[in-house]
């Protein structure tokens, strides 16, 4: 029987993208148990609905997380629109879907870089982030910001895309797709990458469903659930949507699912840009949510299904705004997969759930 040490992993650790604390009980480089602790980045943002009216809160919702920023602003705006019975024009819905899918491409490319860094492949990390800069340039041109866009408002969007911008977007995406297809060959075919990811952190489909996992983490274990297939809001305009799954349930499967989701997102953007309808980009929203009204909304963020709930009380300040983010569902799955792995696999497994602790703790 070897000696058991406790390694404190986080909250400040160079490989972690967000502050989470894990007490790893380790015996000779094998993790016996991992005890997670969160709460380092709780800012109390949901309480701000009491002091910021429902229009101002979009800007707070955006700043919950840097990577899921657009997803949160869109999800929040849609929830309040459901609450007040506002019908958003079709063009605005299309624009929201386009920006959201671009967010997904950005998020997954960023994640691919971090995953490469986690298994020690620094040059792959740098090349993935070099490609990500192209997407950020598109965001800058079309929304004015690189990470926080502030283009969504309750009732629609605040900016429009003109033909020049659409041509620019199409050319950048064509470039991006060519280089990206080369990049993912390094992820999916390289032997040293496979050595680190195949068979690591496996979780079965039954366990995944029981632990309540969502997003690519769930789909890599074989369960085909994706909110976009329910076809709500702008996603109902898509001709066809099939969630991408893999049946192995290990780190390699999760990398593969995310790589292919980027290509799927690029296809969705192309489809939406091609049939973008003319029209208004917003409707004027007057008044306040009725007292006692409630609404909920589901959005497929890059990390998984995010659930929003809003309650009105008759004033322009919402009574309650609750966001249940995907990572809070995946933490249980992460703790389960960490049992019995090597110390060298810990950061790989923590990263494969694509942790966004800022969203989890708000």
């Amino acid at each position, binding site marked *: 029987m070897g000696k058991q040490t406790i390694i404190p992993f986080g909250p400040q650790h160079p490989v972690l993208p967000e502050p989470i604390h894990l007490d790893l009980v380790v015996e000779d480089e094998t993790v016996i148990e991992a005890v997670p602790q969160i709460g380092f980045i709780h800012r109390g943002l949901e309480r701000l609905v009491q002091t*910021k009216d429902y*229009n*101002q809160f979009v*800007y*707070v919702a955006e*700043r919950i997380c840097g990577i899921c920023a657009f997803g949160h602003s869109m999800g929040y705006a849609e929830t309040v629109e459901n609450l007040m019975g506002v019908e958003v024009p079709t063009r605005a819905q299309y624009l929201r879907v386009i920006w959201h899918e671009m967010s997904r491409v950005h998020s997954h490319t960023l994640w691919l870089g971090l995953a490469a860094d986690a298994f020690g*492949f620094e*040059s*792959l990390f740098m*090349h993935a982030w*070099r490609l990500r*800069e192209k997407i950020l340039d598109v965001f*800058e*041109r*079309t*929304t*004015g*910001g690189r990470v*926080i866009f*502030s283009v969504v*408002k309750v009732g629609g969007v*605040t*900016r429009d895309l003109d033909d020049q911008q659409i041509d620019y977007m199409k050319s950048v995406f064509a470039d991006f797709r060519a280089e990206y297809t*080369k*990049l993912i*060959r*390094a992820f999916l*075919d*390289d*032997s*040293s990458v*496979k050595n680190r990811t195949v068979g690591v952190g496996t979780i079965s489909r039954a366990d995944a469903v029981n632990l309540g996992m969502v997003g690519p983490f769930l789909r890599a274990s074989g369960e085909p659930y994706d909110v976009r297939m329910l076809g709500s809001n702008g996603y109902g305009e898509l001709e066809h949507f099939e969630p991408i799954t893999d049946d192995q349930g290990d780190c390699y499967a999760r990398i593969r699912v995310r790589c292919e989701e980027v290509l799927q997102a690029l296809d969705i953007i192309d489809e939406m840009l091609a049939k973008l309808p003319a029209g208004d980009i917003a409707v004027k929203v007057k008044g306040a949510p009725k007292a006692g009204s409630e609404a909920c909304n589901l959005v497929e963020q890059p990390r998984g299904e995010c659930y929003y709930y809003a309650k009105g009380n008759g004033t322009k300040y919402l009574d309650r705004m609750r966001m249940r983010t995907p990572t809070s569902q995946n933490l249980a799955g992460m703790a389960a997969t960490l049992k019995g792995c090597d110390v060298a696999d810990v950061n790989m497994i923590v990263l494969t759930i694509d942790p966004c602790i800022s969203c989890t703790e708000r």
Partner: protein
Amino acid sequence: MGFFKLGSMTMGSLFKEPSTLRYPFETKEPPAGLKGRIVNDKDSCILCGACMRACTTGAIAVDRKGRTWSINPYRCVQCGYCITVCPKKCLSMNPHYSEAAREKKIRIVNVPEHPKPARAKADAAKGVDAGAKAGEEAAAAKAGQKATAVKDAEGAETNGAAGKDAAEN
């Protein structure tokens, strides 16, 4: 056996120009529509304070008595809500990359008095020395505008005294 799958990118990058922008020796042209700094067209501002109430971070301050509109650029998060609520559409956002600074300065804009259009119309209806009176007021307003135009602060100190003089005129 998959080895050197990234080889083409690695060797290729070795012989190509690096993709880094060598700031500050090279700078990037801010694209149109970039979020940057909020500017106020002082000729149309009526100091109603709607932007101050709308601001999500409390960066804008409107002083009706001192006739100033100021913004703390270090609190501004460039959300653009003030632009949406302004009734006179005098606020706009200029593309600007914020540079580093050693101290946080508040930008103050002195809003001059505008000629009140309602009185001129009433005098015309009365038909009494309307031209002379309107001319007088226009001259006074112009003088006030000229005095404060020079002192329009772009990160400098306020010139409340001169502003007050113009107001009294």
